[in-house]
């Protein structure tokens, strides 16, 4: 079982890779909409990437209102 910290770290790595920004510019508490400069449609790309990576289903209503990487990680953690 991954820790929340590990899951968060993997999300940050995937987000950096997908949206082509340096990993060190991302922090767990960042608002990913602002930091990645994305809207909800592009956030779905991240969700799809995360679903593939973690082998889970993450219904979008479960991430409604979630804007930071750490909370996103906790939602994923609940599905692992």
């Amino acid at each position, binding site marked *: 079982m991954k820790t929340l910290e590990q899951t968060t770290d993997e999300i940050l790595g995937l987000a950096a890779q997908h949206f082509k920004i340096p990993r060190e510019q991302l922090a767990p508490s960042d608002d990913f909409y602002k930091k990645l400069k994305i809207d909800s449609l592009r956030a779905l790309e991240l969700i799809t990437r995360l679903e*593939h990576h973690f082998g889970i*289903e993450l219904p*979008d*209503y479960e991430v409604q209102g979630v804007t930071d990487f750490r909370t996103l990680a906790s939602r994923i953690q609940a599905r692992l």
Partner: protein
Amino acid sequence: MLEDLEQFIAALEPAVGSASALIIYSRREAGFSAGADLRELYEASLGLTSAQRVSGARAFLERVHRVLNTIDATPLTTIAAVHGVTFGGGFELALACDLIIADKMTRFCFPELRLGLIPGFGGIPRLRRDVGNAVVRDLLLTGRSINAAKALSAGLVSQVAGEGEALRVARATASQAGKFDRTTSAAAKGFLKPIPHEELRREIDLFCELFERPTVVESLRKFVEDEGAHPYLP
């Protein structure tokens, strides 16, 4: 967009004799299609009485249904090669095809209930034709999106392609389908994929009933005026 599709189906019939398959895809980077232009729908509703709004919506839906029924019924083997956002009307266009080949980053969604509506372009009857009710109800009643792997396991998608590979896979599939006698393929298609005309008609009626309510215009207004980053999330 609708005018383009109408011109396209007019050109389709003469091509039937010389072609064996039709691939529908999009060059848009964000995805196959995010569906109907809600801003256009909202702006066209302004200043109209409820009866005028419904009458306009019905006329529009009848035109869309003529296009999608033609694509659905063509004797050609039809393949939707989809990627990225495949929502609402875009999803409904894909469902009119015989096969859906999805890039692994595709997401399918019917967001209409968020606006107080149901899909109006034949989405419900065609989805019911292809997959079990559990999936239909999940997609419709939660408005959630699903990825290509989930769609494959639900029987909605025929094949999942790697990123950026859906069109190539669709071409290979079209080439394979084109090896068979056209009369036999068309007969098999007609037998396997009847068009649910009665349900399609009822869907238009129900859409119009729901569209008549002022709450729908209010939902459209909120969506169109939302300048936040996440209007698509429920």
